[in-house]
């Protein structure tokens, strides 16, 4: 039988992998993809906790839904900024972004 612990453990490992990616990646696109993994790990934890601990209202699944909304918004803005960085510097590496003003 699968318990809540299984889902939370999977979510924790996924979050750790995403954290590793955010720190080690040197391309902004890859960093954004790792952030997506982080957000999805959190959404899994919310949905699983809702399914096991809140069998009447399932509020956590609504949280997972909102996490997807925020992830989509974050990704579109992130890619727009990345496009600007690329036009400005000709590269999408993290270490070309050194100053705030263009």
């Amino acid at each position: 039988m699968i318990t809540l612990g299984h889902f939370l453990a999977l979510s924790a490992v996924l979050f750790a992998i995403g954290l590793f990616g955010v720190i080690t990646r040197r391309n902004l696109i890859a960093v954004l993809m790792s952030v997506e993994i982080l957000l999805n790990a959190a959404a899994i934890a919310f949905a699983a906790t809702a399914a096991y601990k809140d069998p009447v209202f399932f509020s956590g699944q609504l949280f997972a839904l909102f996490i997807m909304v925020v992830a989509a918004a974050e990704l579109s803005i992130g890619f727009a900024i990345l496009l600007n960085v690329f036009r400005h510097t000709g590269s999408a590496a993290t270490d070309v972004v050194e100053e705030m003003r263009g």
Partner: protein
Amino acid sequence: MSVLGFAILAGLILAGALVVVLSENIVHAAVALAFTFFFIAGLYVLLGSPLLAVIQFAVNAAAIPILTLFIIMTTQSRRVRPAAGVFYLVAGVLAVVFLAGLWAYLGAPQEAFRPLSPEGLGARLLTVTLLPFEVASVLLLLAMVGAVVLARRREA
């Protein structure tokens, strides 16, 4: 709920995430991201919420990887230079510490659950969480307009 199904899905999700994080070819990473999100949708089916699974499939497993691939092709960054070794060390230590902390915190509750119908979820979405729902729609509109404004070419 089958243990085997969960084990297979979990293994595929973790393998996909590792490819996303470690692959030097960024196109491979984006495709692996699509597969990871697809298997996470399967996880939502196991959790008894087909609505979340469908939305996960449509948004995260389909739209986001396509957008990512567009950006990869636009910026022509196929390959990723590997980071310095000290970054790998710091990231590995951080990830292991985080994992150990969370693992120590995890209990193993034994309750079963019963799935909630998509109708119930939708009704709750539009009654109890009506305000966050509207705020989310405004957020999406702002993100859309903001992305268009940020990414448009300025006339020099």
